[in-house]
């Protein structure tokens, strides 16, 4: 009950904040771009929409930029913005003087970012579907895609990508809790992400925690061979990274001498 109260308190704080807008923008940005490109290339749409693998192509086109760019950037910003609500308003001292365990505060805030990420996934999938069907509703010569939506495969891929993103979220949360200056977590996050992108073709690029969602997508979309990492399970690695970063973040947070 205490945790639910703390979570609802944390959830209310992001009302009208940049963090809440980020979820909407992050979820619908790529689908909107895809929709615009469809409008621009309307002549090619009838063939595309008649294809039996329409939804798979739609999925790959949507996730390409999301997995490699928008999702890591969005998570870097979201984790920073959630902790900035306290730093910017000078409210850590008020929060830490409320009758809540430090662990409750830590995990309630973390859960807010996790739920925001889940929201982004949901909005993104809705956006992906809408960007697929809207052209057929607007253009008379574009048929409604007849191909069946592979729900199970998409659900499983969504789940895996969500897991793959968690190391970014956990490490960004750790850094964001430690620094008052918003530029520090954002700068560090972007540096690690850039490094990961630069080293993506490296054999051991899976060791860079910010690469996992990109690698997962590249493998599932056939851009990387399926047996690229025969001994490594990307999703298990993501869980290990997440656990390590979360424990480190918690220890550092609780050990802070000045909580005001």
């Amino acid at each position, binding site marked *: 009950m205490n945790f639910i*109260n*703390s979570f*609802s*308190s944390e959830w*209310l*704080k992001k*009302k*009208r*904040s940049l963090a809440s807008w980020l979820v909407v923008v992050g979820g619908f940005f790529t689908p909107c771009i895809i929709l615009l490109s469809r409008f621009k290339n309307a002549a090619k749409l009838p063939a595309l929409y008649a294809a039996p693998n329409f939804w798979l192509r739609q999925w790959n086109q949507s996730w390409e930029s999301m997995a490699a760019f928008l999702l890591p950037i969005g998570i870097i910003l979201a984790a920073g913005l959630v902790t900035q*609500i306290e730093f*910017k*308003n*000078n*409210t850590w*001292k*008020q929060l*830490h*003087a*409320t*009758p*809540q*365990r430090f662990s409750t505060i830590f995990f309630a805030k973390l859960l807010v970012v996790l739920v925001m990420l889940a929201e982004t996934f949901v909005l993104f999938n809705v956006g992906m579907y809408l960007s697929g069907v809207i052209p057929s509703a607007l253009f008379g010569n574009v048929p409604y895609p007849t191909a069946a939506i592979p729900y199970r495969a998409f659900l499983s891929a969504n789940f895996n990508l969500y897991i793959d993103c968690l190391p970014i979220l956990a490490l960004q949360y750790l850094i964001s809790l430690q620094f008052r200056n918003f530029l520090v977590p954002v700068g560090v996050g972007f540096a690690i992400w850039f490094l990961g992108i630069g080293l993506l073709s490296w054999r051991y690029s899976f060791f860079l925690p910010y690469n996992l969602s990109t690698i997962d997508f590249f493998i599932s979309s056939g851009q990387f061979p399926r047996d690229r990492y025969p001994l490594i399970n990307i999703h298990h690695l993501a869980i290990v990274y997440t656990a390590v970063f979360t424990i480190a973040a918690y220890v550092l947070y609780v050990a802070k*001498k*000045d*909580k*005001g």
Partner: protein
Amino acid sequence: MNSIETINLTHRFSQSETALNSVNLQVQQNTIYGFLGPNGAGKTTTLKLILGLLRKQQGEILVFGKPFAEQRVQTLKNIGSMIESPSIYGHLTAAENLRILQPVYGCPQKRISEVLELTGLARTGSKKANQFSLGMKQRLSIAIALLPSPSLLILDEPTNGLDPNGMIEIRELLRDLNRNHGTTILVSSHLLNEIEKFVTHIGIIHRGNLLFQGTLANLISKQQQYCFIAFETSDDAGAVAIINKFSTLLRADSGNLATPILPKEKIAAINQALVQNGIDVYQITRVESDLEKIFFDVISD
């Protein structure tokens, strides 16, 4: 019973910087304790330690008679606090700021409108807190502190940024909480004249040392010790010998003759004796020290 007691509370920010030196604070239940000291004296550090915002290094902190660290969450349920500058979410309204804390304290929903009314913020509506004046922000911080109907209220410089009218209102509010609801209040300030009007007890801290602690009456009796009669004459050396026949001299330097407070008749007799001995008396003054002066005397000793 003490609502707050610190025993030899010592805190260092570095080896060379001692912020608090064996502070033994005693805030009795149902009192209004004014915690006084100039900026940087150690007031906020003490309050942060009491609330667990700073990690305790040395000494003991007892709140409601129990070690704070052992029952932090349970203890904080009965404490309302406001430390330093206002701590509010600028993108939210006053009511939303309170709604955030309402589930955490588990207080009834109607308490939100009650504290908004008490602090004069009931009509702020949909105005965001970052559009508030400093005084309104301060009121909202006080509203947040009052939300859990606490039995102990810890307020760090609560009247900062308030206009004189606002100061009086907050003073009245605190006095009312203490008298009618039995709330113990620990309020810090760097201005004695701001808190002397409503506190029952005073603690004076300077450079991390608690220099005075007691009732306001104790401090006022200390004030009497700082009152004296000053004589200004044409021949101070000659005057010393004459005044000594009537009273002991507190100070006998040239240009600075002073005796303790004397009856009117004795002052007249001294005056007469000085004149009869050919010493002109330019001025006899009764010098009374106000509490503000006592405060400065205490911290400059």
